[in-house]
């Protein structure tokens, strides 16, 4: 990916002159900063970079990136990005979406982009609420959530986006959050390096309609004991607790003192069967229990765009470049004098 001739850039080169219009205090600002700070480091060119979004607060993102960009319609960003990436494998294509855009109205495109393994970097800003439409519950809101559209509490079971992505055959699945720029940048860097569809769920605070949704796990005092960092090849532990696999195959959180360091599960993000990653994604039923962050899964599979390109090239090798006159005569012809 790294091209030595790529001009050296700084954060400001990736920023536009457009006024950023998110609410003051919105978590989206820190994600924007993380991405703008990361891009100079990735060895990519602005003109080869495309940001595609749908509708929602997060989807304003492309307007603030000094690259090519499409702010499209609700839910359709993965489909548009698929078209761009398949047409032009030379481009670096990003999808910016949210929990409503990506998992509700655009859920179908989301899962199909993942299973096709189109070469996309998909950042899903999960704030567990509809912000742009002013505060209805989203497909990641918890059961019982009281909002304008659920005055008696939501009765919808939420999606776990990591579980969903793993079930959709995603080859790269990760989670980070808007309060840790370093972790965010590192996770997004890993996603960008991945060939194929890379999915990053970013817990993002909506301070107007769902303030403090992640407070129980992200609060400064609790973070160390509530976030479970996943590090490839390392035992899964956080504070004085860790994750072990019971004899019945289920995962359990326990005190390291009780079970011993050696009993801890060692994280293997390259493990081909997605079952263990799925189990890790189920450790927490919501952001009020100890929650894994980092890369759940990073496996290699041929990308859709490469395979499409491969078929074009082999057809040209086999049949030679297409010739229109020959095509028109291919159904058999006759002459009229």
């Amino acid at each position: 990916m790294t091209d030595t001739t790529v001009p050296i850039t700084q954060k400001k080169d990736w920023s536009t002159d457009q006024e950023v219009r998110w609410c003051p205090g919105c978590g989206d600002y820190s994600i924007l900063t993380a991405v703008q700070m990361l891009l100079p480091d990735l060895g990519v060119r602005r003109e080869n970079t495309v940001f595609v979004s749908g509708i929602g607060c997060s989807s304003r993102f492309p307007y603030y990136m000094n690259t090519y960009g499409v702010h499209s319609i609700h839910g359709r960003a993965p489909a548009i990005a698929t078209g761009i990436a398949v047409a032009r494998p030379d481009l670096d294509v990003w999808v910016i979406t949210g929990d409503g855009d990506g998992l509700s109205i655009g859920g179908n495109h989301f899962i199909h982009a993942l299973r096709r393994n189109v070469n996309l970097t998909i950042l899903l800003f999960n704030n567990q609420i509809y912000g742009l439409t002013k505060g209805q519950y989203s497909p990641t809101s918890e059961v019982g959530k009281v909002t304008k559209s659920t005055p008696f509490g939501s009765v919808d079971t939420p999606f776990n986006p990591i579980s969903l992505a793993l079930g959709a055959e995603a080859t790269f699945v990760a989670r980070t959050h808007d309060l840790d720029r370093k972790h965010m940048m590192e996770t997004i860097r890993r996603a960008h390096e991945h060939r194929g569809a890379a999915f990053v769920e970013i817990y993002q605070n909506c301070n107007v309609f769902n303030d403090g949704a992640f407070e129980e796990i992200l609060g400064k005092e609790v973070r160390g004991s509530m976030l479970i960092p996943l590090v490839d090849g390392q035992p899964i532990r956080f504070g004085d607790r860790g994750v072990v696999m019971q004899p019945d195959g289920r995962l359990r959180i326990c005190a390291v003192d009780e079970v011993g360091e050696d009993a801890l599960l060692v994280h293997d993000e390259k493990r081909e069967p997605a079952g263990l990653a799925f189990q890790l994604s189920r450790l927490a039923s919501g952001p009020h229990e100890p929650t894994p962050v980092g890369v759940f899964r990073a496996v290699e599979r041929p990308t859709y765009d490469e395979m499409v390109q491969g078929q074009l090239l082999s057809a040209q090798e086999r049949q030679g470049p297409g010739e229109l006159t020959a095509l028109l005569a291919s159904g058999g012809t006759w002459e009229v004098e």
Partner: protein
Amino acid sequence: MTTTDRPVEDIDQVVIRFAGDSGDGMQLTGDRFTSVSAAFGNDLATLPDYPAEIRAPAGTLAGVSAFQIRISDHDILTPGDNPNVLVAMNPAALKANIADLPKAGTVILNSDAFDERAYAKASLTADPRIDGTLDGYHVYEVPMTSLTLKACEPTGAKPRDAERSKNFFALGLISWMYTRPTESTLEWINKRFGSRPMVAEANRRSFLAGYNFGETAELFDHAYEVQPAHLPPGTYTNISGNTALAWGMIAAGQLANLPVFLGSYPITPASDILHELSKHKNFGVRTLQAEDEIAGINAALGAAFAGQLAFTTTSGPGIDLKAETVGLAVSLELPLVIIDIQRGGPSTGLPTKTEQADLLHAMYGRHGECPVPIVAARTAPHCFDAVIEGCRIALKYRTPVFVLSDGYLANGAEPWRLPKVEDLPDLSVPFADGPNHTMPDGAEVFWPYERDPQTLARPWAVPGTPGLEHRIGGIEKADGSGNISYDPMNHEHMVRLRAAKVAGIAKDIPPTDVDDPFLGPDGASTAEILVIGWGSTWGAITAASRVLRARGRKVATAHLVHLNPFPSDLGAVVGRYPQVLVPEMNLGQLSRLLRAEFLVDAQSYSKVQGLPFTAGELEVAIDAALSVGDAR
């Protein structure tokens, strides 16, 4: 092989309908007869008519599949109003089709299929061969099943498999009756079934058995011959509308020097375009079978943004789903060609039957003021030209364009005089390659919505071009800079600009295609009526007007390829005649547009039966309109 012992009668045309169970291979039989007749040099037109169910219960009326072909020694325009010959493979096929066969017509029956069980399945109470149903027809009963089984005995095929070759027996028999050469069908059988030698042999033997049965059985007293038609000189092929569309898409890519991208979801009757295009990857064609209709058009729009010639293909239900993205394409001002193979609606409607009821949908089926140019194909071969014209407009004006075809054109086949590739138009358009706007401070910048003053098209700046990075979206944007703008006056300005851009295409399309022998040099006409249509009604309208003119009626016709915008002279054309009649396979959509646009008393003549107009129906309808005029 030629007929030696019985006379051959020259006839100028014949209409044959093959009808059987949907598992009987009637479409294949029809296709094969079509190819042989095309190669023989006849003019022809076909009308496949099959059920939506892949395999409805065998022997039932719901399962009847038919294929009508008209072959002629002169230029013809329709597949014929009524057959002269009906081949019925079972009682259900006979029952479903006999009403269309005029008395004195020829019926060829597979007599083996006529028994009590079959009558029950076909909801018949008696043997239709003896209950009077067939009175007045020339009926030939041929035991096709048993003769096929007998012919296939030496191949060792099991009777159940051998029986499936009976459509080739029927094809052989009709090939003898109409003096078709046998070699090309035999070659075709070898090629098609080469990998299954036993099937190939069974089909070959059945075909020859049918042919020889005609020659040797004393049933038929003579054969017929339809001489080659005197078509304009050139190289011809036989083509269906969907194949012509697919080839037109490939051709447009070559003419524009752009890679072709199709985002599509399978739907009847449009799927064949996806199938055909996906065969031609050596032209650099990318086909994406998307997860749904919406993804199909959005992937195509993404490819358009990325600099490719992008298409989506579908039928009515798919157009419903794609509407929001068509609106986005209007706002983004990117070239995108949306192909709608219209079928009977609303909802699932009649998936395998034809209709032209999506015109107003294409015209208005989006929220907001959202103009989209519309081009419609009039014949199967014309699908090739229509899609190239759609691409020309899309690329030049950076706009989505609808290309309308329908189920009748999609599956029907006609001879096509191949165009010379060097005569096809150049569709190439330049990509933006540098700044196009000077700021007050003298800075040179790129503005994605700075327009060409002639076409009002915005620049097409594709990713990968340094210095032209820009963001576009569905939110209203400021004219020029393309930045988000909620300014009231800017919105009105942009709405009017987008409308003016599409309206301006009228300057760039040919005048109305009018066929009026009664038009004087002064531009006045003595014709009593103008019959105006669009799309696949062209053949029937033209055929009917020829008959009426031969009877001395002064009928002018016009046919529209461009439905939005209309040709700039259309108002003058429709205003020139005392009567305007608009035949359409809908409840009056073009007629509504003409009335609204030109304040003309355009009369609608409608048919919505899932079947095309016959020339005879239109002859009667035009005659009726003329007699109203006479009475005035």
